[in-house]
């Protein structure tokens, strides 16, 4: 047997296309299960010891002074790097397994029968778990149109898929706590649902390129894979090898930058530029974020450092969402199937949603 090829995908870390199907009809053995549980226990024990270890390493082993710039920076780095990597590995594994249940074919078939509103909600949620990358956005869009999924529902999916990124959620949870992660997840979903719903109201089907319209009658080739649990576990391993293998360098670089800001930049430095009082910082953050195309893994540690230095949560969230959800390269690809007007509407609606989120959180937190 050939070894399974690791899948390459876009920098954002989303799973582009699922890997080769397996045909083995094996069941999970008791031994596999035991090994899994043992691994999980070891993971937990190590995870718990990371913080004490970082203190021991920086202030005990290296003998750095507590509260010194270098000491703070190094402790931050030594704690956050393994913590984030461990969280990432575990969650990516679980999501990799989960994703084997949500193929694009299944999602498409499911959404085709849904009406708007309920369809928008379901599409946004499926956007989180269905394998997706910006290079597969166009074929996926075509498939949705072909299957007769309403345009607004399709957009809910297209917005949620990159914006509510599992890597970003994990990192936010690991670095900033579950509240910020939940806010990000919740508002991201809401923006996708509402934006898609609005686009659906506008009835903009005629702004899809003409050749796409003609696809409605086309025949679709569907090859369903039959997967066993062993295959799904393999998918989990592949996802880890693939996503973690690709983003670790960004994570370390991001945490490095974060550590430097953490240790050296004065506490209130960001408050004047990105603080609550600077209302204009929200739109600026969104506009600056559009041409930037970073993956979630690289940007979250920077976000953490910015927040720690007095930047307002709303502004930072707006910046992050803009970077992840409104990317120039994706627009260029979508241009092949959408007329420019529809792309403008897309950017306008999603951009407004992000702005709103930014202002809202600056106001209430």
């Amino acid at each position, binding site marked *: *047997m*050939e070894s*399974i*090829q690791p*899948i*390459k*995908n*876009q920098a954002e870390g989303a799973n*582009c*296309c*699922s*890997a*080769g*199907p397996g045909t083995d009809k094996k069941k999970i053995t008791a031994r596999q299960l035991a090994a899994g549980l043992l691994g999980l226990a070891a993971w937990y024990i190590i995870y718990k010891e990371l913080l004490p270890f970082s203190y021991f390493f920086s202030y005990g082993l290296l003998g750095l002074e507590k509260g010194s710039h270098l000491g703070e920076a190094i402790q931050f780095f030594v704690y956050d790097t393994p913590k984030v990597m461990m969280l990432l590995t575990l969650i990516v594994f679980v999501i990799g397994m989960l994703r084997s249940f949500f*193929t*694009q*074919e299944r999602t*498409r078939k499911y959404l085709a029968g849904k009406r708007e509103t309920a369809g928008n909600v379901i599409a946004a949620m499926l956007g989180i778990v269905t394998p997706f*990358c910006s*290079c*597969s956005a*166009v*074929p*996926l869009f*075509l*498939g949705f149109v*072909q299957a007769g999924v309403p345009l607004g529902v399709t957009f809910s999916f297209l917005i949620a898929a990159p914006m509510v990124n599992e890597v970003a959620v994990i990192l936010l949870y690991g670095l900033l706590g579950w509240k910020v992660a939940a806010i990000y997840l919740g508002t991201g979903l809401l923006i996708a649902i509402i934006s898609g719903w609005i686009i659906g109201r506008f009835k903009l089907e005629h702004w899809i390129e003409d*050749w*796409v319209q003609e*696809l409605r009658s*086309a*025949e*679709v*080739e*569907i*090859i369903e*894979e039959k997967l066993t649990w062993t295959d799904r576990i393999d998918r989990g391993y592949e996802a880890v090898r693939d996503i973690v293998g690709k983003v670790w360098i960004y994570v370390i670089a991001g945490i490095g930058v974060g550590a430097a800001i953490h240790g050296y930049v004065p506490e209130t430095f960001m408050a004047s530029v990105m603080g609550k009082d600077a209302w204009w910082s929200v739109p600026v953050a969104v506009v600056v974020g559009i041409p930037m195309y970073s993956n979630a893994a690289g940007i979250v540690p920077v976000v953490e450092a910015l927040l720690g230095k007095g930047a307002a949560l709303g502004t930072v969230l707006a910046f992050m969402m803009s970077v992840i959800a409104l990317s120039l390269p994706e627009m260029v*690809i979508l241009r*092949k*199937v959408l007329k420019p007007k529809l792309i403008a509407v897309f950017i306008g609606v999603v951009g407004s949603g992000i702005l709103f989120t930014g202002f809202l959180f600056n106001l209430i937190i």
Partner: protein
Amino acid sequence: MEIKVCGPGCASCEKTQKIVEAAIAATSVDATLTKVTDFQEIAKLGIFSTPAVVIDGEVKSVGNIPKQSQVEGWLR
């Protein structure tokens, strides 16, 4: 034998192409390999997730990277 690898040129598609090339070499069948990158053309084949492999007009895999052993099976 006429083989088409469909995909807009993302990393997964490149990988698929390499696997197909390797499979052709391994089985030493007489085959021409073409790469289809145009979305319109891909959609016409009825394919809506990439990468996909088409052999003599028959769609063999959609939306995933096949294993080399699989591709060799299709070629034989």
